[in-house]
């Protein structure tokens, strides 16, 4: 019998009680949660609440990958990486989502600034990647189209 990877890992986690760890420290994980920033419905407010007072500059040093047309608006894969030094956090904002702040990653000084995540989008919108480093926000943007599809040649 051969196990597929998911079964293998699920059996491993059962064997070592890994799944218990995930629920053991919810308060610690969620302590730094930017609740207001994540729940506001306006892009500018979300940025200001997440990064109060920081200047935004457009940057060519941020490699932001996102599909031009989403294959499935419910799971849009995006990734952000950069060579900028001292990256403290990376956040993703979807302008037209009901709550624009979609994800925020806090990086430790030794982390490599290279994140990927799937975001949910209800409609075509600009998506912004903001990289926080040395008190500045380095911005890259991309429009992601959500379409009903069909009619391809």
């Amino acid at each position, binding site marked *: 019998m051969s196990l*597929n*990877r*998911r079964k293998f890992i699920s059996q491993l986690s059962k064997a070592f009680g890994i799944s218990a760890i995930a629920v053991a420290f919810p308060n610690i994980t969620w302590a730094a949660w930017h609740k207001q920033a994540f729940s506001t419905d306006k892009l500018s407010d979300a940025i200001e609440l997440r990064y109060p007072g920081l200047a935004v500059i457009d940057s060519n040093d941020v*490699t932001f*990958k996102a*599909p*031009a*047309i*989403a*294959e*499935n608006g419910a799971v849009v*894969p995006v990734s952000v990486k950069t060579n900028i030094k001292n990256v403290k956090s990376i956040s993703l904002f979807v302008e037209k989502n009901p709550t624009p702040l979609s994800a925020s990653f806090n990086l430790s000084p030794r982390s490599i600034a290279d994140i990927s995540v799937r975001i949910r989008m209800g409609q*075509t919108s600009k998506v912004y990647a903001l990289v926080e480093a040395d008190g500045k926000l380095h911005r890259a943007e991309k*429009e992601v*189209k959500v*379409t*009903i*599809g*069909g*009619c*391809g*040649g």
Partner: protein
Amino acid sequence: MNLNRREFTKILSLAAAGGLAPSVFSKQRPETMYQLGNFGDARLMHFTDCHAQLNPIYFREPSVNLGFNQAFNKAPHLVSKHFLNHFNIQHGTPLAHAFSSLNFREEAKLYGKVGGFAHLKSLVDDLRNRFGHNKSLLLDGGDTWQGSGTALWTKGQDMVGACNLLGVDVMTGHWEFTYQDQQVLKNIKDFNGDFVAQNIRVKEDALFEGASAYDEDSGHRFKPYVIKELNGHRVAIIGQAFPYTPVANPSRFMPDWTFGINDLDMQEIIDEIKETEKTSAIVLLSHNGMDVDLKMASRVTGLDAILGGHTHDAIPQPVIVSNPSGKTIVTNAGSNGKFLAVLDLKFGTTGVVDFRYKLLPIFSNLIPANQEMLGYINNVRHPYKERLSKTLAVTDETLYRRGNFNGTFDQLICDALRQTNDTEIAFSPGFRWGTSLLPGQTITMEHVLDQTSITYPETYVREMTGTQIKSILEDVADNLFNPDPYYQQGGDMVRLGGLDYTISPTNNVGNRISEMRLDNGTLIDAKKVYKVSGWATVGSKSSGAPVWDNVASYLADKKKIKLTKLNTPKIIGLTNNKGIL
């Protein structure tokens, strides 16, 4: 009148002697269309989007192919006399017939059918023999396994066999994927050449579940590229499958695979090839569509050529695109087996130093059929012969599909849907494949399948509000007219039966469509509910009969086809646009 081979050759050589052959380099000796001089070190032959047309057919090029913004009045957005004038092709010649829709009915009768794999094989073999087998390659841009009844019923296997016999060395794909992932893998296994695609990866969760990949680390489902040795020169062929396959076609057929344009990844692969493979040339075999290829060529550096397809543009001269560190040749080679492109490359110490390009129309009256291929085609079609040759009606019209907004065959499909489903409005997708018929021709089941044979042919009848109808038109219009080619999908506007509208292509999404009216002139009411029929849904499977049943029964009922009305939109903003006559 139908020209015999001798008369035809005479016309051709006269045209060539007058400098009318579509050549960028007109100074070489007069040559007949198919006898190219030998130039350079490597010959790349390319065909694309044949849509499984094994036998010669008629195919009318579009008379509406609009371009705006950067694409305004540039190839491929030129039609009819504008196209011929731009490429210096004399009107009334076989080449003018091949590349435009001018006098289509008369000239199609005169010059006969085009394409056909038996004729294509004779030409490919001849070009290989003259130039040298060891330095020639045959590339197939995809949309090869779909578009005919036999391809549908054999799940593309008839085409795999034909391509093996033809000697295809490398291919990429689009409609291929609609046969479902497992069938795609099976067909590729049976295919003697290499299937390449840098822009298809296995989704991470599917990999996690144990889905197979060409490279588990990168996630590539197929080889991203292949290196071919041509008489000591190494040539890299990178594959670019249609980036929006899971958007334009049902994603349920390839649930584990993700596509996309991915030009950052493309650059990484080119850089890697340059560093590690010691190539004389790097060529992209692309199914992006020409507008996307032109943009990609301006952003990605290091490609010598992009041999393109998908948008079915038959462009006789390449477009040379400058990018940060060089120039890229961009071509598009038409559709339905009507053309064979020949790119001859000359190498120097730094790589490609010169080239010749020709896009050769396959006039089946002019090129003898290869008997081995003919035997194969007859054999593979034999079990289906009765179903295919069933006669349904006679047409009084030229029936065709290509064009941004409608085609007469699409109108026929919409009329059939409306009548058989008793709906006010019908939708039919803006596909660019499908052959043409001349007035007086008998419409057979094969012709109907040439327009409809897909793996999601089910029809639907739905109630839609005026608002919903508008939002569909807006969405599709943006896929066609978004100013940024990376946001286009390369098909044409959805076809409508029973509904006329006004379109302003240069407006933003949501503001292009207005004045929607039923055939009786009544304005569409945003809140009112209308009964709509259609087919080819990409979301979930529809429950109705396959569309070819509706069309066949409609035709059998009518017996003689004369269209009473062509639902055509009013187009705003066409001043000086050479994409329409």
